[in-house]
Structure formats: C-alpha cells, structure tokens
C-alpha cells in the first residue's frame, strides 16, 4: 500500500519529493482499522498556498485511500 500511495502522490504532484512511512506500530490497541501513515512532500506547487490548502491537496490525491485503508495521515508539506 505504501508504494501505491507514493505513486499516487508523485502523480498528483509532478516533480515532488515524496516520502511515505507506516507509523501504525504503537497504535495496535487503537479501536479502529486502517493504517497510520506519515507523508512528507516537498513540492514547488505548494508555494503561495495556505497550510490548509496544501493539506487539502494531499487529502484529495488520496481520497480513495482515506475512505477505508488509511485511518490517520500525518502530513508535512514543504515548498523546497
């Protein structure tokens, strides 16, 4: 799943530097299904956009995954 998510992000943000990590460990007792992921994206296209807009762009790119497979997504965006 990590590979697919990275591919989706790289397709959505051309030229971006994308890192995806599974941080599910430590959440096993959490009363929910789905992975805990952390993504870090460096993308010039984020320039001039608010943090909310940047994170919305990430959520949009992963719309399908957010519905079920992903329980929590930690997002870090940078422009350079």
């Amino acid at each position, binding site marked *: 799943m990590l590979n697919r998510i990275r591919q989706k992000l790289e397709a959505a943000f051309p030229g971006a530097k994308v890192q995806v990590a599974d941080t599910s460990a430590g959440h096993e007792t*959490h009363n929910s299904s789905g992975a805990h992921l952390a993504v870090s994206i460096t993308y010039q296209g984020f320039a001039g956009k608010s*943090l*909310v807009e940047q*994170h*919305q762009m990430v*959520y949009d790119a992963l719309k399908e995954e957010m519905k079920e497979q992903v329980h929590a997504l*930690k997002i*870090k965006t940078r422009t350079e």
Partner: protein
Amino acid sequence: MNQEIKKIIEEKINSSTVFLFMKGTPENPQCGFSAQVVGILNDLGIEFASFDVLSDENIRQGIKEYANWPTIPQLYINGKFIGGCDIVRELAASGELMELVTQ
C-alpha cells in the same frame, strides 16, 4: 450538503472564538490526535468550546464535507477553519496560533 446540518455546524463554530470538533471531550479525549490538540490549546492557555463528534454521526460526517477535510479533529477560530492536528501543531510552534486567537 444538508442545510440543517450546515446551520447546526455554523452555530457551533460561531458560538466561541475558538471551537474544536473532536473525538471525546477535553477531559476524556477518545483519539490521540484530538488529545494532542486539546493539550496544545491548554498549554497555551487558550479557552475553547468543543463538540464530541462521536455523539452525533450526522455532525461527524457533516463537518468533513463542510471543511473539505476528511479527518477529526478540526479547529476553528473566529468561525474560520484553521486545520487538523498537524497544522495546529505547526501554528502553535511558530506562534501563529496565539496571533490568530488574539486578533
């Protein structure tokens, strides 16, 4: 979206300068991310009102659509959506959160 739900959401976020949609209550958060935001607000001495989305499925789904934001918690200041846990933490670290509250 459902206009009735939208009205309820807007009444809530306008009921307090700082309003948090969270899982559980500030005293008893039901999710680590909600707990983190409560902790940040408390550490900064920011007073806020909150709503437990686990108590109302319509509101829980409604605010995702309202803010175009798929996760909880969601923080609002002066009626404006500020962000979720990651953004709140970044804004707190940079001092911008305090600025937004005192504006």
